[in-house]
Structures are given as structure tokens and as C-alpha cells.
């Protein structure tokens, strides 16, 4: 076994939050603080509230990656995945610990970094490429490929501010996709664009992985992780909870979510999801998902073919002219099953204004069989971009109900969907009726 291409030893990263938060200050505040410091020290003596002062985004993380590994990093929001990539990309410094990296690192933490709206597509390709670490000669060499991948040949000389958001994303990803570092760090950037583009991106990522480069892939898309990655690492609260094959990591991750006790602390049974404290810092976020019956009362148990209302409460700090709320149910092993959205699938236009709001999704005859499903939600500008995505927010159980009157209630292990249907024997008489 050769030298590991990445070796992380006891890596820790601490962020200060709350009152002692080291956000930007003004000189005035700094001077006042300085003057008041002796008084404050006297007052706080014996009241060291260190707990709320700081959070360890990464806590004593150690692992090794061999050359050619394609590693998927999964975990809930806030588990420390993005912080790890930031440290590996040298964007932020670790508080403790050490990392050794062998080889050129290319980071894709965001697509379109450095794009300037006033510059043309052609100019932005060079600028973005240079920012990502490509040399001018390299960009020139790959220029035609990049343009072909992005499908923007005709618009090369128009300022990027005139591009549609789809074109913008395609161009941004096209440049990033042609990075050829030995180690590639990718942070959930593939969740953009339309279906055909996503497929293209995943294909490109797969190609990069097959070339033998080392890839570090953070994502919530379990399908992409299981397709692309051989190794998987699960992060929980800043620590590594599991390290193994991608398949095992995904299972471990789902088991964590299914472990309701951890998060249910005091939540009433009809509340499916309640956002943790730090989600509020996002511009948009879903704060709560509840189940109600048709009269608006809390519904504690959901069975197959029940009439149910899912109430999604969300909070906005910025305004959006057209917004949409999405709700989706997926089987535990990943994949898609049921997807509901106010728009474009539904017909409820929404304007996101500042504050807390709720929408109800009224479902008659809930079609899922008895079993456990993963609930996800999102806020978006319909068909344009996601504003907030909460993948696998919680696991939800559907109770069995003998909807067919057969004594066998439909179960997810046999059929995920329970649809109204009938069986009959074809008799000579009925055969004659069919033309």
C-alpha cells in the first residue's frame, strides 16, 4: 500500500458563536469593549458560560485516503462535512490537529465562484478557470470542450448577467468539471440544474473517478454516492461515526435517522420535524412539519389511505416573488417515490415574504403502504433553483391498514404504493364485450 494521499490526524475546528461571536466589529465596538473589559471580567468571574460560546464543527477527526479512492462523505446538516472540505481546501484553518495532502487539490465548493456579471462568457471562463487553479495555457487548451459541455457557443460574447440561470449554472459547472487535479473535493454542487444536466455532471464525475483520481464527494444524494463512491464516511456532530464501504455508510446513516429517540426529545408525536436552532441562520428554511387530520387536529398515526394534511411551516429572512414548497417521501434505501410541490406540479403560487408562514398539503387517501419512509422538504423558486434543501429530515412510519379488505394490509416490503384496484376472472361473456 502506497502513501496515503490524504492523512487527517486529530483534526478539530472550533467556531465561536453567540455573544462572544467573533464576527466583524466596528472600531467603536472594539474600543468600547476594550474600555469595558476589566469590568466585564469582574462580573463574569465564576460565570464561565463556555458551553454556548463556541461549537466544535469538527471534533478530533482522523482518517486516511489512498490514491484513487472515491470517498463519499454523508451526514446530516451541520455534521461538519462542509467544514471538513473547507479545511482541506485551506479556506479555513484548523483549531487543532494536522492534515497531510499529497498532490494538487481542486475544490468545488460552489459553482460559479468568481463569475463577474459584467464580463462575457468567454472572459468568465478564463477568470473562473484561473481562480480554480488552472493555468492560462490549460484553459486555452480546454476552451472548446468547456464551451461544448456548457452548450453556450452562441452566447460566448454576451455579458453573463444576461444569461438565464440555467446557462449560468451550465457554464459554471463546465469550467469546474474540466479541472484536473490529483485530488478533487466536491461539495453538493451537483444538486443544481435540470435532470439532463445533472446526468451529465454525474457522468463527468464518474469519468473523473474512473481516471484514477482521488475524489472526496459530499452529498445528500444517496443514489449518486452509491454509484460513484467505493468508500463512505458518516459524520455526526463533527465526529466520524462510521468509515467503511459506501453501501455500509449509507445504511449506517439511515439507521441514525431512524433512531428517533435522539431527536424526538419532547416533540409531540404529530410533529414530524422541528428544525434545530442553527437552521434559523439560513435565509430560508423549513422550521416544522406536522401531520393533521381533515379537521385540523393533530394526527398522531398515519395509516395507508388516510386523509391527512401535512402542514409545512417555513421562515424567510428575504423576499422572493415566486416561491414554492416541496415535500417528498422516499423509501429507506434511497430513490424517489412521492414528490409534491406547490409549483410547478401543484397550482398554488406563493410569495415569500419575511417571517414565518405555513402551507398545508391536503392528501386524500395517502397512497403509501405500511413501512418506514424518509421525509424530505425543500423551498425553491419553481423550476429555477433551490433556496433550501432538507434531505432526509426525518423517518416517518405509515401504519398498516387493511384497505383491500383481504386481511393483508399492504406493506412497503411488497409494494410501496397501495392503489385502489380490483381483480376479476375473465368469463366468456365479458370476453365478448371487449372489442
Amino acid at each position, binding site marked *: 500500500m*502506497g502513501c496515503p494521499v490524504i492523512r487527517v490526524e486529530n483534526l478539530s475546528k472550533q467556531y465561536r458563536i453567540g455573544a462572544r461571536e467573533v464576527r466583524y466589529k*466596528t472600531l467603536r465596538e472594539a474600543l468600547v469593549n476594550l474600555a469595558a473589559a476589566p469590568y466585564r471580567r469582574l462580573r463574569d468571574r465564576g460565570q464561565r458560560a463556555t458551553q454556548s460560546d463556541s461549537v466544535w464543527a469538527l471534533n478530533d477527526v482522523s482518517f486516511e485516503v489512498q490514491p484513487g479512492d472515491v470517498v463519499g462523505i454523508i451526514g446530516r446538516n451541520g455534521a461538519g462535512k462542509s467544514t471538513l472540505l473547507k479545511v482541506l481546501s485551506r*479556506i*479555513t484553518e484548523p*483549531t487543532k490537529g494536522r492534515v*497531510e495532502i499529497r498532490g494538487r487539490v481542486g475544490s468545488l465548493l460552489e459553482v460559479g465562484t468568481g463569475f463577474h456579471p*459584467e*464580463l462575457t462568457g468567454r472572459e468568465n471562463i478564463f477568470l473562473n478557470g484561473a*481562480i480554480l*487553479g488552472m493555468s492560462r495555457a490549460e484553459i486555452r487548451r480546454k476552451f472548446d470542450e468547456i464551451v461544448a459541455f456548457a452548450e453556450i457557443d452562441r452566447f460566448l460574447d454576451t455579458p453573463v448577467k444576461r444569461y438565464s440561470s440555467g446557462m449560468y449554472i451550465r457554464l459554471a459547472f463546465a469550467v469546474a468539471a474540466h479541472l484536473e487535479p490529483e485530488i478533487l473535493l466536491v461539495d453538493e454542487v451537483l444538486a443544481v440544474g435540470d435532470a439532463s444536466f445533472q446526468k451529465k455532471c454525474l457522468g463527468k464525475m464518474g469519468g473523473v473517478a474512473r481516471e484514477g483520481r482521488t475524489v472526496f464527494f459530499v452529498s445528500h444524494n444517496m443514489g449518486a454516492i452509491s454509484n460513484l463512491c467505493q468508500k463512505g464516511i458518516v459524520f455526526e456532530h463533527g465526529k466520524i461515526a462510521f468509515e467503511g464501504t459506501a453501501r455500509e455508510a449509507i445504511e449506517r446513516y439511515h439507521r441514525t435517522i431512524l433512531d428517533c429517540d435522539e431527536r424526538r426529545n419532547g416533540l409531540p408525536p404529530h410533529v414530524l420535524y422541528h428544525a434545530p436552532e442553527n437552521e434559523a441562520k439560513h435565509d430560508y428554511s423549513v422550521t416544522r412539519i406536522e401531520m393533521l387530520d381533515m379537521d385540523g387536529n393533530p394526527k398522531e398515526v398515519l395509516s395507508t389511505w388516510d386523509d391527512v394534511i401535512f402542514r409545512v411551516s417555513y421562515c424567510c429572512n428575504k423576499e422572493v416573488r415566486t416561491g414554492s414548497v416541496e415535500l417528498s417521501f422516499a423509501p429507506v434505501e434511497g430513490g424517489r417515490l412521492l414528490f409534491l410541490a406547490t409549483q410547478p406540479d401543484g397550482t398554488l403560487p406563493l410569495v415569500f415574504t419575511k417571517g414565518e408562514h405555513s402551507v398545508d398539503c391536503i392528501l386524500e387517501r395517502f397512497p403509501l403502504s405500511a413501512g418506514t419512509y424518509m421525509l424530505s422538504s425543500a423551498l425553491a423558486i419553481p423550476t429555477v433553483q433551490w433556496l433550501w434543501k432538507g434531505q432526509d429530515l426525518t423517518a416517518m412510519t405509515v401504519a398498516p391498514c387493511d384497505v383491500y379488505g383481504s386481511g393483508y394490509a399492504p406493506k412497503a416490503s411488497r409494494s410501496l404504493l397501495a392503489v385502489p384496484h380490483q381483480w376479476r376472472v375473465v368469463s366468456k361473456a365479458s370476453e365478448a364485450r371487449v372489442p
Partner: protein
Amino acid sequence: MSSDTVTIPEASDSAPRPAAPVDRADGLPLLVIEPAPGWRPINLRELWRYRELLGFLTWRDVKIRYKQTALGATWAILQPVMTMVIFTLFFGRGAGMAQKTPGISYSLFVYAGLLPWVFFTSSITNAGTSLVNNQNLVTKIYFPRLMMPLSSVGAAFVDFGIALVLLIGMMIWNQTGPGIGILFLPAVIVLMSLLSVGVGALLAGLTVAYRDFRYVVPFMTQMWMFVTPIIYPTSIVPKELRWLWGFNPMAGLVETFRYAFLNWPSDWTPQTFLMSGAISICVFFVGIFYFRRVERTFADIV
């Protein structure tokens, strides 16, 4: 562990450790990322590796400044020229400064002084806000952060070049030529660049931590201009106080720049020049080291 791996000793918190690539037997550079509190030296090799990026960032700054403007690059000349015209009218004629600069056209006198000054102020004002304005770059991509204030200085240099062409034109028109002082020109340009980078880096770092610096800087440069001999020749400063002017590095640099171009019995003294030069070099190092010291917190607080 394979035999060609050299064990790197564990870093103690007091020893500064730059994240510098070290070549290994297998040919790939090894990068070590560790917390490194304290003062860190400039990583020249890394700056050289990212030199093309510096070019692109400078090019971007220059390009966007003039995109969609009617006058385009002429803005580079317009600012010093308009200032010169106003100063000539008010200070030259109105306040009688023209009498204080015998043997030379007052406009030329002012313009020659304005050139290095405009370079300096435009460098430091843009450098100061460079990190804050490029917050998305700082939080998502790695590159030596020094590139940001450096690209502001680079963009100011481009404007300086354009305005210099006009200066030469004016000199030809006035039928004046440079004297022996022209030998000092390379030194002045180097020193004024060092000073701009130093102050720019210092302000860039300070503005990230204390946002009100971006409002302080324009005010500061206004005041600074009055203690720099641009509108007036140093000769009107009483001899006993003239040593104070030496503390203003721009004073010496502006005087020397004028001396380089205008062959005019001026009030240039080698003492002021040396003092300015020394202070410029000191400020450069102080600015860079301060920047390197606070660099690691940028992504967290910008």
C-alpha cells in the same frame, strides 16, 4: 510507513508553520495543514505559482471599471486632469501658488505631483475593501489572500501608466525635459509600489475585522493629501518644520517623482527621499506581516 517518508516533527503551538509544499521522493508535492498561530513569513514560492491569477484579477478589476462606461479608459486620465484644472484655478491663480513655483507651469507641477498620489490613494482605497467585496471568493476558494490587495495595486498601476503618457505629452508641449533626476524614477516607482502594497494590505486586513475602516479611508486620504506637497511646493513650509514632512513617506516620493520629471530647481532633498524610502519599506513589511497574521481568520469572519 515507506522508507522515503520523512517524519515531520509535531508542531508546537509556538512555532509558526507555513503551509509550504515540500517535494517528496514520489514527485508529488506534500502539503501540511496545521494551525499556525503567530507571525508567518511571506510564501514567495506560492505567490509565484499564483502569478497568473494575479494577472487575471488585475485584468478583471481594470475591465469592470470601464465596462459600460461611455468614456472607458479615459477615466484613468480624467480624474488627475480634472483635479489639476481645479487646483490650478483655485490654488494656482486664486491662492497665488503659481508664484511659489517659478520656472515651471503650475499645472504641470500639480499634475506631476498628482500622478503618484492618485496611484497611492486608488491602490489603498480599493485594496482596503478588496477582501470584503470579494467575500464569495474568500470563503469558497483557496488562493494566497495577498492577491486581493495586490490586484488593486496592479489595477492602479495600469491607470498610472495611462496617466503617465499624458504627463509626457504635457511635458513635450511645455518644452520641458527631465534632468538628472530621471535616474530616481525606477526607485520612486518601486518605493511607491511597496508603500501602496503595505498600506493596502494593512487596510485590507483591518477592514475585514473592523468594517468602519472603509469609511475612514477616504477621509484619511483627504487629510493626508494636505500634508503632502501636491498643491504647494515644500518650499513654503517653514524650515524649522520641514523635518516633520519627512515622516510622510508620500511627501518624499512625490517630491522625488517631480524631481525625476521636471528639471526645475526644486526643493528636493536627499534626506527626505531617504526617509520616505525607509518608511515605505518598513510600512511594506509591517503591512504584509499583519496581513499574514490575520489571514487565517478571513474566511471565518468576512
